[in-house]
């Protein structure tokens, strides 16, 4: 037996892989295919499905009623990514410009909120943003800064604030890593050639940190597009994203085939984005 295994390393590999591989085949790959099949079936009268092939679900996905939610979700995810970048880049720059000791402490401080429960962090913003009893409106009203409560809650603004807060750390990390790898002698060389600070940034620092910016944007955009908890809590039931429409098909509308079609489309978009990202980074590495 031992002899046999030694002579066939591939068998060893599959023996090691088989427990996890089998588990994921049954409880991940099989469900994935079932959802794919479901997305081509018809809904039954009282929940469940009718085994009849149809493209109807995918046609409905492009119904303006639902497709607009897709576009809104993409718009919210893009704005979230943009604001994460706007806040995250200087923060990453700030951390990267500290001494090594402070730097690792700051990275830790950055990641601690990220490892606390997402639901709790979203709830924290609920108590801050709520229209009549939220902390921000209460404080501004009692200070006399505003006369009527600001519309901070139950809209896209609230969702974007919650998402930016939740995903900011994963934008900062890869940018920090890129800035940390940056060779300081390049900046000095640019300065010696009389480049202004703005020029140094635009011509040297920004292009060299771009891989980090792209990685961070991917890490923010994908979960933001698929978010469910944040719009459920901060959207106040009025402002919805595609994740909520999907969950409604299972919790309320009992239209599983349509819910399956929606999530197939969402997953396809994300996989395409991820593949594009990997291909472009591989190409960039090959070019370098």
């Amino acid at each position, binding site marked *: 037996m031992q002899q046999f295994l030694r002579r066939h390393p591939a068998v060893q*590999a*599959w023996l*090691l*892989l088989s*427990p*996890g*591989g089998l*588990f*994921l085949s049954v*409880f*991940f*790959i099989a469900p*994935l295919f079932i*959802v794919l099949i479901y997305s081509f079936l018809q809904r039954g009268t009282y929940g469940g499905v009718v085994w009849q092939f149809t493209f109807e679900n995918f046609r409905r996905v492009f119904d303006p009623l639902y497709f607009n939610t897709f576009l809104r979700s993409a718009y919210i995810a893009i704005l979230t990514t943009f604001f994460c970048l706007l806040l995250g880049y*200087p*923060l990453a*720059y*700030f951390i990267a*410009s500290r001494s090594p000791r402070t730097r*690792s402490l*700051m*990275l*830790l*401080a*950055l*990641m*601690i909120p990220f*490892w*606390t*429960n997402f*639901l*709790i*962090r979203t*709830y*924290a913003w609920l*108590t*801050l943003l*709520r229209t009549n*009893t939220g*902390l921000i409106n209460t404080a501004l009203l009692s200070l006399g800064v505003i006369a009527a409560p600001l519309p901070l809650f139950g809209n896209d603004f609230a969702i974007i604030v919650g998402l930016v*807060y939740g995903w900011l750390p994963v934008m900062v*990390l890869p940018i920090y*890593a890129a800035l940390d790898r940056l060779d300081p002698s390049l900046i000095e060389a640019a*300065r*010696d050639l009389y480049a*202004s*600070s703005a020029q140094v940034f635009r011509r040297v620092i920004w292009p060299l940190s771009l891989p980090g910016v792209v990685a961070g944007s991917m890490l923010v955009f*994908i979960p933001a597009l*698929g*978010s469910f908890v944040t719009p459920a*809590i901060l959207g106040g039931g009025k402002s919805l994203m595609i*994740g909520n429409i*999907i*969950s409604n098909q*299972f919790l309320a509308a009992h239209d599983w085939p349509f*819910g*399956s079609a929606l*999530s197939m489309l969402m997953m396809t978009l*994300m*996989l395409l984005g991820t593949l594009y990202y990997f291909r472009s980074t591989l190409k960039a590495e090959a070019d370098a």
Partner: protein
Amino acid sequence: MSTTPSDRTLGMGARLRSRLGSLSLSVYGVLGFLFLYLPIVILVIFSFNDSRSTSQWAGFTTDWYRQMIEDRQIILSLWNSLFVAIISTAIATVLGTLAAMAMERYSFRGKMAMDAVLYLPIIIPDIAMAIMLLIFFNVSGIGFQPWEVQFFGNRLAVPYSVIIGHVAFNISFVAVVVRARLANMDRTLEEAAQDLYANTWQTFRRVTLPMLMPGILGGALLAFTLSLDDFVITFFTSGAGFNTLPVRVFGMIRRGVTPKINAVSTLMLAGSFLLILISIISRMRSGEDEDAIQFGL
């Protein structure tokens, strides 16, 4: 006065500008961290508020914590959370570690496909994975049968489907962390062991496994944290009437904001901090460089 070459090339104004620049950068850094921490701090403060309000301070009380402890539903869902996290972490750690060794140490046909299978659960959003599992448990007839179990004096009824769901997303995370450790591991010790006639098992047991232990522990801690924090997958794979702590908190939020939720949140924050602390200490013990803190953690 010592002047470096770059100081000389910069005029006074430029030097001031760069000083102003570094000052505004510092201000920015402070504001950035305030943004990250202020909401959490305010959340904790109002868990001690002597009023039902979460925005107007009315004096100090620990009454919300008393109410939390006396709420049988909350305590039960806490035990549910811990049970699911412990069982799913144990299974995912073993399966994920084995898979990581196969992926890092061997080349075989179908490796690319296996790579995709291992990364997918990390990439696809919670909600998609949740409804996949929901449909699967319905269609397959596995259903949402509970595992009736006695756990620290509590009678729990934990659906197998929830544990399976947690294992399904945790295998990949464990595999990624363990693989990273394996990739950075010095292989000469293993080769030395084999030169000294240790067989495959002895080499694994006496050399590879001890060296790999920090990675495995890191992976297990990550899995445990993710399992405790998960809301979406638990919510969709539990059938009716089963609550982990996040699922219960979500239900409470739906019914209205009270400082009692702040108290439960504070408890969960304390749990997270404890796990992060354990992770840092175990990293320091294993003597990993400080930069490693930024990743796995």
